[in-house]
């Protein structure tokens, strides 16, 4: 049982790391603000979820599990809110998605 739990948490941690890294590459390589935002927002949430669940499986029923759950809850609440607020502010400020600019000029 412990072996299976270990294996599952390792897989989750590795998958989380992979998603986080993908998000980082996306933020650096994507063209235009909104595409970067897309890369960051999606992988951030999934990577956080996977990593945190992986850590929770490692810690068992202890105080650290409660703390990890709290971290997970707050990150899942605040990260998308920050992403939303950021995209909203950029849109209101008149930053236009790149594709839209290109199709207008055609």
């Amino acid at each position, binding site marked *: 049982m412990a072996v299976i739990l270990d294996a599952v948490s390792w897989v989750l941690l590795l998958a989380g790391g992979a998603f986080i890294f993908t998000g980082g590459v996306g933020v650096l390589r994507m063209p235009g603000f909104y595409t970067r935002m897309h890369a960051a927002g999606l992988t951030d949430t999934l990577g956080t979820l996977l990593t945190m669940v992986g850590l929770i499986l490692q810690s068992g029923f202890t105080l650290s599990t409660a703390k990890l759950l709290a971290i997970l809850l*707050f990150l899942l*609440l*605040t990260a998308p*809110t*920050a992403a*939303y*607020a950021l995209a*909203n502010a950029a849109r209101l400020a008149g930053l236009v998605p790149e594709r839209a600019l290109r199709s207008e000029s055609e």
Partner: protein
Amino acid sequence: MTVLFGAFLLTMLVITAIGIVRAQHLFVSVVLSGIYSLQMAGMFFILDAADVALTEAAVGAGVATVLMLSALALLDDRERSAGLKRLLFAVVASATLILLLHASVDMPSLGDPNAPVHTHVAPWYLEETPRLIGMPNVVTAILAGFRGYDTLGELFVIFTAGTGVLFLLASVHERGGLALLPSPDGTGLRHHLVPRLIGRFIVPFIVLFALYVQFHGDFGPGGGFQAGALASAGIVLYALAEGEATALKVLSFRVLTGMIAAGALLYVGVGLACLMLGGTFLDYSVLADDPIAGQHLGILLVELGVGITVSGVLLAIFHSFAAREQRR
């Protein structure tokens, strides 16, 4: 592995610092300072300084960025001149850098247990704290117990800085006292529904966590300085979500100045109580029948005083800048 993680973070720190200095737009400098503070806290954590990392987290991530931005809102946020005698200073700085690097060879290597720092008073603190103070967190024991005088001094520096900011920025009340007059325009992010709701939802958790950090400081990383910074960050978030005027209604200017004074007075009062009971100033052993219980009580009260003053000062500073902003 630790060394490699540390080296990686340190390299990023240097790059960020250079980016901060090079940025022409002050706003960019402030945003990069946020990243700098995050890296610094990670570095402190790797170097086994959990309390310091918590302080940097509480101060750097929330309060520092907010303060810098509210000051920038009052100023021209672009650097206009290129600088003064840049070449000369670059040469002087490089020469000093070479001297410092040369001197670093004589420093003991990182983590050397026989370094001079670790052979002086530190072992005594580590050995005697469980017996004399009976508190797991040695940092708290030294901060409020062994070096209580020093912390009292630091608290008064914070107190003085806070009053200084109030004298510089607060407006004069018609009856002669200081006052902050936020106009109703300071609505914060009231028009943005989602951040406002989530912000309001998070505020009680931050304050609750601040209380946990305040009173759990004997057993884990924490204490008055961290808790004060965290609590003020929570109220700043409330002010951002609901507007400064609403936040000033919740914790009025009078309450804030009262907090600034009350915390410092509590600290001094504990010291005087020790004198009255026949001990020396800030020697908490006389506060209870059992010396260790006395130490616990004294440290708890003193840390509470620190927390109250720190949160009062940081909030008063925030409101001073915000009120100035709206008056113009």
